[in-house]
C-alpha cells in the first residue's frame, strides 16, 4: 500500500543512475563560452572559463559555494557582462547584452527566486511580456499555453492562480515560460534545492523527455547523486576556474568531489549519534503542548502538535513538504502566533513571544527562507550583528562599528564565508548567504536550536561542516529540532525522528527503529499504531 509520494520519498536515499543513454558528447555545440573572465572589484568570479554545451545534452555545473557557477550562467543569460571572453550560440558569435538577447537566441534561465506574478494565472504569467501586438487575447493565450504544456509534457493547470501553487509547480511554470519562448537551452540554477523528492523525480522525468526533443540543459546542483543520475557531462569549477569537464558515465561521485575541492575528501570522523541517555528522566528543553496554528490563507496548518526535545538530543522532523513544517518553524521562531497550545523553552513560556523574546530565551533559529532573514542591502557585518545590536552600543547610543567589523571578520574566518565584512549580502553566493545565517546563530551557543533546511544550497564540504556543527552543538547540550526535507540528513543526524502529516505528528520513532520504509508510511499518512 505504498503510494507514489512515499515511494519517491524513499528514492531519495538511493538514487540509481539512469540507464545508459546514447552519448551526446559528439552532438553539435549549442553554446560555447570561451575564455570568460568576470571581475567584481578585486574578486575574480570567473577566470578564463571555457564551457561547451552540446545539443540535447544535460550538462552539470559543479563547484563549491562561490566557485562562480551562478555568475557564469548569469553572463550567458545576459544579466552580467563578461569582462573578457566570447560566447557562441549554435556556432555563431553572439553578443548577449540582456536577457532579451538571450531569449531571442533561445536561452532560458530559471533561478531559485522565481519571477512570477502571484495574483495572475499560470497562462497570464507565461505570456506576460511575450505577446506580439498590444492587446492581449487571454482566452487564446490560455489555449496556447495549455497546448504547449501538453506537448512538452509539463503538468500544470493554465487557469490556476500562481499564488495557490506549490514551489514545485511554480518552478514548472517558470520552465514552461522559458520553453514557451522557444528556448532550446535551459539553465536551471539549483532547481532541486527547493523541491521535495517526488518533485525532483517529476522534474527529472520532464527533463529527459525534453532532452529527447533536443533541449540542452545546464543543471546546477550540489547533490552529486543528482548529477550522476541526470547529466551527460559535468564541468567542475573551483575558485572561478575550470578544473575539467568529464563524461558522467566515466566518473564517480568521489572523483567529482575531489575535483571540486582539489583534494580527496577524508571521510569525516564523527561520533555516531547515540540515543540521548536517560532523556526521559530529564525535563525537556523544548516542549510543545498541543500547538495549533493557521497558514497564510487562514486554514489550519498545525493541529495540536505536541513534541519534546531534550538537552543533547537532535529530533528530526520529517515529512512531505507542505504538511505544516514551515508553520511549525515560524511558530518557534516567533514570527507566527499559535492559535492554541503552549510552547515552553527550559520551563519558560514562549507561546506568545516575539522574535526578540525568543532569542532572549536562548533559542537559535536557522530559517527556511534566507531572504526573509537577511537584509540584502546591509553588509555582512551589519547582518551578523543585527540580532544583538544592543551589544555593540557604546556611550550615547553610538554603534561601535569597529567591533562589528571585527566580529564579522572573526566569523568569516571561522565559518569560511567567502566575503568581506563590508560586502553587501546581496552580492554573496547562495551558499555564503546561508553561512552568514549559520554563523550568526551558532556563535551564540543556543540552548535550543530550530534548524529548518540548514544545508539547503550548501556544497558538499560545507554541508559536512554544518552537520558537524550541529552535532557539536548537540554534544554541548543543545536541544535541536532539525526540520528537513532530506531524509538522508535526518537519518544521519537525528536521535529521534518525528513525522508530520497534515499538521499532526503521526509518530515519533527512535532512530534505530526508523527504517526508511516505516518513515515513508508515516509520511504518507499512516498512524504509528498501524505500523
Amino acid at each position, binding site marked *: 500500500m505504498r503510494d507514489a509520494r512515499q515511494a519517491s520519498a524513499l528514492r531519495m536515499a538511493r538514487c540509481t543512475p539512469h540507464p545508459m543513454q546514447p552519448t551526446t558528447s559528439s552532438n553539435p555545440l549549442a553554446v560555447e563560452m570561451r575564455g570568460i573572465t568576470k571581475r567584481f572589484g578585486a574578486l575574480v568570479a570567473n577566470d578564463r572559463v571555457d564551457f561547451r554545451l552540446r545539443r540535447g545534452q544535460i550538462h552539470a555545473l559543479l563547484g563549491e559555494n562561490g566557485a562562480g557557477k551562478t555568475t557564469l550562467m548569469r553572463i550567458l543569460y545576459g*544579466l552580467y557582462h563578461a569582462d573578457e571572453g566570447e560566447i557562441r550560440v549554435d556556432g555563431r558569435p553572439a553578443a548577449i547584452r540582456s536577457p532579451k538577447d538571450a531569449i531571442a537566441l533561445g536561452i532560458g534561465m530559471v533561478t531559485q527566486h522565481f519571477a512570477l506574478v502571484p495574483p495572475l494565472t499560470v497562462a497570464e504569467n507565461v505570456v506576460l511580456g511575450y505577446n506580439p501586438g498590444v492587446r492581449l487575447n487571454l482566452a487564446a493565450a490560455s489555449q496556447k499555453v495549455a497546448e504547449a504544456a501538453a506537448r512538452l509534457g509539463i503538468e500544470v493547470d493554465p487557469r490556476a492562480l500562481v499564488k495557490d501553487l506549490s514551489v514545485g509547480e511554480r518552478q514548472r511554470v517558470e520552465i514552461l515560460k522559458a520553453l514557451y519562448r522557444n528556448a532550446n537551452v535551459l539553465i536551471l540554477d539549483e532547481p532541486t534545492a527547493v523541491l521535495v523528492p517526488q518533485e525532483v523525480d517529476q522534474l527529472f522525468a520532464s527533463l529527459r523527455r525534453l532532452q529527447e526533443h533536443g533541449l540542452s540543459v545546464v543543471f546546477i546542483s550540489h547533490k552529486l547523486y543528482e548529477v550522476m543520475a541526470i547529466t551527460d557531462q559535468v564541468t567542475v569549477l573551483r575558485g572561478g576556474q575550470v578544473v575539467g569537464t568529464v563524461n558522467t558515465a566515466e566518473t564517480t561521485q568521489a572523483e567529482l568531489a575531489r575535483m571540486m575541492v582539489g583534494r580527496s575528501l577524508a571521510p569525516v570522523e564523527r561520533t555516531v549519534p547515540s540515543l540521548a541517555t536517560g532523556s526521559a528522566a530529564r525535563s525537556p528543553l523544548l516542549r510543545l503542548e498541543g500547538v495549533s496554528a493557521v497558514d497564510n490563507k487562514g486554514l489550519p496548518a498545525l493541529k495540536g502538535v505536541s513534541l519534546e526535545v531534550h538537552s543533547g538530543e537532535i529530533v528530526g522532523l520529517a515529512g512531505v513538504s507542505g504538511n505544516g513544517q514551515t508553520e511549525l518553524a515560524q511558530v518557534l521562531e516567533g514570527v507566527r502566533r499559535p492559535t492554541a497550545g503552549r510552547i515552553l523553552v527550559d520551563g519558560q513560556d514562549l507561546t506568545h513571544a516575539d522574535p526578540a523574546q525568543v532569542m532572549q530565551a536562548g533559542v537559535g533559529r536557522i530559517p527556511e527562507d534566507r531572504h526573509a532573514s537577511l537584509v540584502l542591502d546591509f553588509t555582512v557585518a551589519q547582518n551578523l550583528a543585527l*540580532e544583538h545590536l544592543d551589544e555593540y552600543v557604546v556611550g550615547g547610543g553610538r*554603534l561601535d562599528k569597529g567591533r562589528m567589523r571585527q566580529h564579522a571578520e572573526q566569523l568569516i574566518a571561522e565559518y569560511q564565508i567567502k566575503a568581506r565584512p563590508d560586502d553587501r549580502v546581496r552580492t554573496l553566493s547562495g551558499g555564503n548567504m546561508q553561512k552568514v545565517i549559520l554563523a550568526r546563530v551558532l556563535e551564540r551557543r543556543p540552548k535550543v536550536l530550530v534548524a529548518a533546511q540548514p544545508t539547503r544550497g550548501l556544497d558538499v564540504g560545507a554541508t559536512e561542516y554544518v552537520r558537524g556543527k550541529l552535532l557539536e552543538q548537540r554534544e554541548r547540550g543543545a536541544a535541536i529540532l532539525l526540520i528537513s526535507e532530506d531524509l538522508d540528513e535526518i537519518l544521519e543526524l537525528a536521535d529521534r525522528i518525528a513525522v508530520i502529516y497534515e499538521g499532526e505528528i503521526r509518530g515519533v520513532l527512535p532512530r534505530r527503529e526508523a527504517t526508511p520504509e516505516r518513515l515513508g508510511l508515516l509520511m504518507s499518512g499512516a498512524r504509528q499504531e498501524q505500523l
Partner: protein
Amino acid sequence: MSLRIERRPAPAWFRPLIPLLAVVLTMVITSALVLLVRANPLHAYYFFLVEPLSSRVSVIEVLVKATPLLLTGTAVIFAFVGGFWNIGAEGQLLAGATAATAIGLHMHDAPPIVALPLMIVGGFLAGMAWVLVPALMKVRLAIDEVVTTLLLNSVALLAVSALLNGPWRDPISQWPQSPEIAASAIFPKLIPRSRLHLGFILALVVIAVVWYVLNHTAFGLRLRAAGQSPEAARFAGVKVERTVLVAALVSGGIAGLAGVNEVAGIHYHLIDAISGGHGYTGIIVATLGGLSPLGGTLAALFIGLIDTGSQSVSRALGVPIYLGDVILATLLLVTLATLLLQRYRIVLRRRTA
C-alpha cells in the same frame, strides 16, 4: 542603429556625477521655455545660479529660503528611510505653525528663554499629533499612509482657514490672518538687518542629529532594516511596528518645526499661505538628496538658490517668476530618470544583419 536600455550598473566613479548630470539636463530642457519668452538661456542661468552668490545679501537670502526646506526635507528623509511614505509634511507643517501661533500669542509676559523653547516643543508635538493617526492606521491596520497623509494636508489647510476666518481673524485689519505673536516669541536674527534667523541654526542642529541617529546608532540601523526589508528585520528581533511608528512621529515633529520656523522667523503671524508648498518641496529635497541628510542639505541649498535666482532673473530679464517652479519640477523628473542610470545604461548600437 538602435537605442537600447540595458541593465548594467554604473561604475563607481560615475555615481557622484549623476546629480550634476541631472542639473545640466534640466537646464537644457528648460532653456526651451526661456527661449519662448525671447530671453537668452545663458543669461537666465547666470541669474539663476551665479548672480545670487555674488552678493552677501543674496547669499543670506539663499540660506533663508533653504531653511524651511532643510527641515521638511529632513522630515521626509527620516520617514522614507524607515519605509513610511510620508507625503503629509505640508499638513504637519501647518499643524506646527498653528501650535506656534497659539503659543506665541500668549507669550507677551514671558521672556524669550521661555517662549522660544515652548514654541519649538509645541510645534514639534503638533506635527507629531498630525501624523499620529496615519501612522497608527499604517502599523495597526495596514492602511496605506500615502493616501492618509496626503488627505490630511487638505484637512490641515481647511482647518487653518477656518481658524483665520473665525476666532483668529485679525481684529484690526479684518484680514484672514492671526494677530501678531508676542515679540519675545520671535526668533532672533543671526545677522542684523537680514532675514536670517534662529531657525537656520535649528535646522542645522536637526540635520546633525538625524545624520547621527541614522548612521551611528542602533536605532538608525534598525530603522533602515525596517525600511528595506521589514520581514528580515522582524525576524532579527526588530520591533518593526514600533520603529516605524517612532520614525513617522519624529518625521511629523520635524515638519512641525518647519511651521514654527515660518511663524516665528518670517511672518510673525499665521496666514493660510504660510507654507508655500515647503512640505511638498521637502519630498523633492529628500529624493534629490538620495535620502541622506547630507545630500538633502545640498539639495535644499540648491533649491534655495534657484528660488532666490528666479526673483532676480525675472527682474532682470522679464521672465515669469514661475520659471523657477518649472525648473524645480523638471529637475525632480530628470533626477528620477537619471537615478536609473545607476543601474541601467543606454546603449547605441548598430543593428546586426
